[in-house]
């Protein structure tokens, strides 16, 4: 049996809202090996951030863990006390937030901010280490930046500082929520290269959250496709790209390809994903699916194992062998 770095089983999360509870994450299973780079792909609002933050219990008080387990290095995290959690956060599992510029403390100089992380986890407070880390994320004038406030830096620089803060303690897992969404294409590649480099050098596993196929394609070993609070498909990157199993993944790859191949004739996916309030016991993608079957609307499709891949679609049940070939 493989010894996973992190293993999430059947995680369900709800939010308390005015008119009762709304389940946003409806059962996630995710396993990451040491040194692996895994991507979570999905449209906006499908529950990527909530799933990822729940690993570190970073949601606000309105979040409720309905069920599920999270094992980190074999240890169950959901049972931990707040202070035990504090020892893991930043130190063993680091989190890079979606909007880096606002996630840095405005009244603290960069140097002090990074020093704070070291101090929190009782690591030697060396300026040297901070400068080296800053340089490793591509900050050229580390000495100068050390004495600057976040508002004096550009969005891209702040993004790198955020990453520096994430990696400075040498965590086993880095969760990066859209680390490249606020930077230009050229810089995006630099940052991704950098993350790859760190992964290669230190064996730090990365969980990369994005809605950008390109990013996933460039960096990830494995990909998880989410839709409507569920995982729709999971598998090695190259295979999912070349041979998507789920109609949703297929539609996504089609969209992506159409942008790069013939700019004039874009393929678009009609309709919008369901909001958590609209979730029913049916395949969430069914209303938009062109291969829809009657059973899709009757029950929640099960996760099917297809070779070393997984897919949540009724088409892979025994009764529809013919349709699969149409895909």
């Amino acid at each position, binding site marked *: 049996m493989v010894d996973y770095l992190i293993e999430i089983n059947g995680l369900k999360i709800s939010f308390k809202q005015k008119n009762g509870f709304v389940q946003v994450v409806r059962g996630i299973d995710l396993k990451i090996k040491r040194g692996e780079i895994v991507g979570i792909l999905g449209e906006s609002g499908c529950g990527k951030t909530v799933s990822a933050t729940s690993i*570190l219990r*970073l949601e606000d*008080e309105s979040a409720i863990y309905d069920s599920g387990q999270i094992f980190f290095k074999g240890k169950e995290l959901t049972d931990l006390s*707040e*202070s035990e*959690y*504090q*020892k*893991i*956060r*930043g*130190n063993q599992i*680091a*989190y890079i*937030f979606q*909007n880096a510029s*606002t*996630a*840095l*403390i*405005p*009244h*603290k100089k960069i140097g002090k901010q990074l020093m*704070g*992380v070291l101090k*929190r*986890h009782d690591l030697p407070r060396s300026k040297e280490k901070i400068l080296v880390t800053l340089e490793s994320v591509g900050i050229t004038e580390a000495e100068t930046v050390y004495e600057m*406030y976040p*508002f004096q830096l550009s969005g891209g620089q702040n993004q790198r500082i*955020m990453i520096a*803060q994430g990696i400075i303690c040498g965590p086993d897992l880095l969760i990066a929520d859209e680390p490249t969404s606020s930077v230009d294409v050229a810089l995006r590649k630099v940052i991704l290269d950098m993350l790859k480099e760190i992964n290669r050098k230190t064996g730090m596993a990365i969980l990369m959250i994005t809605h950008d196929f390109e990013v996933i394609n460039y960096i990830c070993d494995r990909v998880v496709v989410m839709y409507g609070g569920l995982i729709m498909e999971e598998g090695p990157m190259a295979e999912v790209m070349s041979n998507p199993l789920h109609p949703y993944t297929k539609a996504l790859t089609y969209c992506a390809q159409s942008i790069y191949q013939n700019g004039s004739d874009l393929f678009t996916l009609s309709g919008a994903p369901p909001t958590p309030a609209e979730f029913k016991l049916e395949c969430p993608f069914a209303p938009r699916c062109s291969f829809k079957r009657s059973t899709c609307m009757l029950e929640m499709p099960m996760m099917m194992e297809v070779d070393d891949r997984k897919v949540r679609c009724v088409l892979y049940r025994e009764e529809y062998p013919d349709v699969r070939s149409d895909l």
Partner: protein
Amino acid sequence: MKKYNMPLLLGSVVLLILLLIMLFPDLFANQSPYNIQHLRFVHENGVLDIQRAPFKPDEDYWLGSDHLGRDIYSYMIYGTRLTITLGLLIALFEFIIAVPLGLIGGFGNNVVKIVIEKCNTLFSAIPALLIAIIVLNLDFFAGQDKFYSIASFVVVLTLVGWARMGVLVLERVKGILTMPFIKGEVAIGKSNVSIAIENVLPHLAPELIVLFFMEVARSLTLLMQLGIFAIFVGNLGLISDASAGVPINLDISFEPEWASMLSTSRALLTTAPWAVLYPALAFFISVLGFNLFGEGLRLRGRERFFSQKTTIKGLLGFFALILILNLFNHKDYSVGYAEIPSLPQSVFIGTESSQKTAHFIAERMHTLGIMPLEDSGYIIPYDLDQTAMLTHQSMALSTKNQTIILEPNIDFAFLSTDDISETAQIYDARKLDLFTMHAPHEFDQKFVLIEKKYYSEHALASFIKKIETNSAAKGVLLVSESDTQIANLTVQTGDGNRIPIIEINQKTAEKFISNENAVLTVEAKTESLQYDGFNVVGILPGSDPYIGEEAIVVGLGYNYLNQSGEDVFKFNINLMEAICGLSENRRSVIFVFLDGTLTKWQHGIHALTEDFPYSSQDLQVYLDLTGLKQASFGKIEFSADQAPITRQFAWSLARQVEDQLVKSGLEISYLSAIFTDGSYFFPEHQAYNAMFWNRGVPSIIMGTLDPEDTAIDVEMLGRILLKSISDNNY
């Protein structure tokens, strides 16, 4: 063109000026705040005009005076320190409560949140002013000493005001906690406490500092409003006039302070508007200054704030310094016993010992830089013609079956006598109408017993005269009011023309009356005194060009009979030296060492007050310490009855001494006084009345009591006196 931050600039100027005034009031004031002048004489076009306070603003009184004759300008200048300090303290304590609670509440503690919100609702539903008026008007708060008065003000106003701050902080903390960077801090593993201290507080800091200055302004406004309602620090709750059956309060403070000025003078609004206007103006300008400064800081913005922390830090540090200076302004005032070699065993009036000691004191004054007050020198002698020392005295009461021997200077004491040896019956004249005295011959060959307490000094003198001329009485027995010790060491002589006068105590009188047919045998032998009485008088000139003329008189004794008395003398010498060493001697200090303080009639003060060598107008207070007779004692005798409120310097000194005595835990026994002609009079102690009644100088009297119960050392008094004199004289 550079754009200036006008509010900040103006605010800084106002605050800087306030700061300078607080630190160095004497650079600004042209008079002492304790100066009081009821009447003044003005020459105008050759015409002499007498004016009564309040005076209009002119070159002497820059902003005029109030009805007590206090200079508004100087009082305001000196009042700045206390007033602004109060404002700062109230704001500070509000923050000390509101910030931590606001933080805890903001982090989601529901109990704290509810407390803050409820308090805020309560105190905004009922105006803070109203609560403060009701609470601070309780008798409990009136007439407290300085420290407690300030403390209670700060406590009450803080309690009334903190919740408003608390809600503000709470809301801001909640707001800050929803900011993304807080989640960032959680993600790197920080705990709530360190997030509160390292993130929320620094993030709040600029707003808090702005708020702090605004809050000082608000506190000052509240103080001003309270002042109008006669509530201010150190309101003594005095009643100036109750003649119409309705008590009229005299709202006055012992310390210069703006709110008290508003209050004291509020009735003068129409007749002397300057007395109210200027203190109110001072309030307005300060409130404006603090508000402008706060607003200016706000305008500078948060980013500038972070990059220019040091200036703000410096400024806050400065205010902290002032608070500290004000709160811990303690000096060491210790007075020990002076080392004096070869003192006589005892010093007594009319003997060589007294003459020698007087010379010693004069020399000591000279070396201390104290100047003689009279051209002839430090020593001012006075006549002791009709005075003698008793060398023998006895009294015995014989009935049919026994003889009771009475103890001299306890049961009885001669007040006046020649050498006598008489035996006679006693005539009880207590129930007689002595004013008419129908049958004086009934007194013939008898001792006449008279109750002293029913008659005035004058009446007694005239009775004795009548008895002497109209009868052949053997003597007069005066029943003293006190039932314990009565003593007198010298007597007046009558050159054979006068009958003896003997004071007896209550117990002795009872013995006399209960044995109806007893005979009394009285003997006395006297020896006339060889020398004059010697008062030693010197002045330490005041350093202040305006108030240097004003003087404090310190009356000390130098006669003694035993070791304890000798220690008191050494203490007195040292007290004089210590007063000379005070840095605040802006007024003159006149030291008078009085001779004959152990006697009833030859007490040097009587001779001195007949022709005191200094203008009585300039004498601010007479501090009578001749009552200090033992170096260790159990109780302190004290009276400030002759230091009325209208003589503010004396009165406030008396207040300070009394406060210090109480604070030091000394038991005070108040001298009993009789109220006649609008002033107090001490029937049992003629000497204590001399300065006040002969020269109109307000007097504070202190003495020692209960030498058997020797818990207290006179050194302690020294510290109290020095501190009070120094404080009152700044």
